[in-house]
């Protein structure tokens, strides 16, 4: 050991920081980037707002919506910090985006907004009713037991653009099971309400593993697949927001969890399955792409859209829109 080795040996042992340790610094850098973008765009907003055709259309629409969301947030008295997304797919690591300050800021704002909403948790014996609509007009109604002790129900009616318009069907969802059981038997690993879902985003995934909604803690193969965590977080947030009642603090935790997961980027505007325009938080996994779509003003969950390859606004629509979410007394009862 040389004297230099000895100096190295007395180096203070410091762990690398967690995502939470870096949130403040990331936000301040994002602010600086936002200021520069705002300064450079100050004289060209009119141009950006003008409708255009062809390949540039998507970017210009992105700019318009990002600004619109910011204005709406300002009206609500919220901090307004938007980094306008790039027209390019974004910085790539292994073919996929890795940091998205605009996404982080949007999600932070969403968390700050939803946490102020009133809380009205359901009663244990009630059901959470959700109604979703697909691009062919098919309506799906789902009733999930709040306490998980009663059998859930799913009912659907094929839309007018479906291959068999008007066809109906229903499924007895049984009582909630774990996702592992669900993969084997088709039961649904969802309940209508998770009163213990943590408000701390760093504790959310552990909790979801604990209740069997996801199975990543004991499945090392996940960790070997790039983007697995984006996929798990994106899908789980979608499922929870589409079918379960979430306390405001829980919603905020899910937004924060997305903000702390590196693979999400804003691809707004994304149109949901029934034509509503929203902010899309997009991720890629194993060659496919998916987006969770939120209302740019209220941050309400609107739906999801997936693509088998890169996101393409002109591709056939694959996804669902949440039309209604309510609490009812029994399975089969409509609000």
């Amino acid at each position, binding site marked *: *050991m040389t*004297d*230099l*080795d*000895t*100096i*190295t*040996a*007395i*180096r*203070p*042992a*410091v762990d*690398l*920081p*967690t*995502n939470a*340790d*870096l949130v*403040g*610094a*990331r936000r*301040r*850098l*994002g602010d*600086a*980037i936002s200021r*520069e973008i705002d300064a450079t765009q100050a004289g060209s907003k009119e141009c950006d707002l003008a409708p255009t055709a062809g390949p540039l259309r998507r970017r210009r629409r992105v700019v318009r919506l990002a600004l619109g969301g910011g204005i709406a947030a300002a009206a609500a008295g919220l901090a307004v910090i938007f*980094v*306008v997304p*790039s027209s*390019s797919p*974004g*910085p790539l*690591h*292994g073919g996929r985006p*890795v*940091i*998205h*300050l*605009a996404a982080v800021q949007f999600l932070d704002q969403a968390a700050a907004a939803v946490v102020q909403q009133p809380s009205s948790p359901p009663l244990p014996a009630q059901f959470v009713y959700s109604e979703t609509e697909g691009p062919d007009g098919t309506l799906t109604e789902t009733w999930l037991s709040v306490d998980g002790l009663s059998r859930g129900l799913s009912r659907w009616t094929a839309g007018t653009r479906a291959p068999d318009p008007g066809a109906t069907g229903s499924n007895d969802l049984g009582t909630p099971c774990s996702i592992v059981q669900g993969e084997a038997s088709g039961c649904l690993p969802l309940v209508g309400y998770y009163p213990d879902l943590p408000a701390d*985003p*760093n*504790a959310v*995934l*552990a909790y979801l*593993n*604990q209740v069997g909604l996801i199975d*990543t*803690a004991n499945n090392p193969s996940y*960790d070997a697949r*790039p983007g*697995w*965590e*984006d996929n798990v977080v994106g899908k789980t947030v979608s499922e929870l927001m589409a079918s379960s009642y979430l306390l405001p603090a829980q919603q905020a935790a899910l937004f924060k*969890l997305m903000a*702390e*997961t*590196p*693979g999400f980027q804003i691809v707004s505007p994304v149109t949901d399955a029934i034509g509503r325009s929203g902010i899309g938080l997009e991720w890629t996994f194993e060659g496919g792409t998916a987006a969770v779509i939120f209302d740019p003003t209220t941050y309400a969950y609107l739906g999801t859209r997936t693509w088998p390859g890169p996101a393409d606004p002109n591709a056939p629509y694959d996804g669902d829109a949440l039309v209604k979410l309510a609490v009812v007394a029994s399975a089969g009862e409509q609000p």
Partner: protein
Amino acid sequence: MTGPAVGRLRAKHRAETVNDATVIEKSWSDPAQFGVLFDKYAPLIYRYIVRRVGRPGTDDLVAETFVAAFDGRHRYDPARSDARPWLYGIATNIIGRHRRDELRQLRISQAIDARAIVPGHADRVALDTTAQSLRGDLTIALAGLAEGDRDVLVLVAWEDLTYEEVSYALAIPVGTVRSRLHRARRQLRLVFDQPITTTTVKEVLTND
């Protein structure tokens, strides 16, 4: 039950190779691209700052480092594919404005039980009994080094930068890096020959 694995994913992404110069050049016209550098290097810079000035306020210093880098990105040399030395240099300049914090941190390090500040496996392997027995004296001696000498020594011995990288980071000739390192090592080598157990960092601070 394991906790969220966000950190593991980030580490995996960091391991992938990206040409930093390309990212920085893109950020000239598309500022949001600069976020890539943050994701890639903020953990390292954070740890570096904690090692030197302690944890309180590190978040601010990391932010200062990256905002300064962002503001100065148009001056970045595109021929340098690795932005790490550049960021270390900026962080070092910012640490320079917090010298008293650094000396305070060294005083804390001197006071802390050796067992508590050597939890890393690699360090445990590397740290022989000599280093342990001299820890306090070496920490005192570090605090007594000239600032420029300490910067060079720490960047080489703690952050694994090469002489050339330190040269670029601190904007000094490689020859100056060598001479500063030589001077620092010579000064610290005195500790090996004659431990200075009667001195404390507090005294060094007082005389600073």
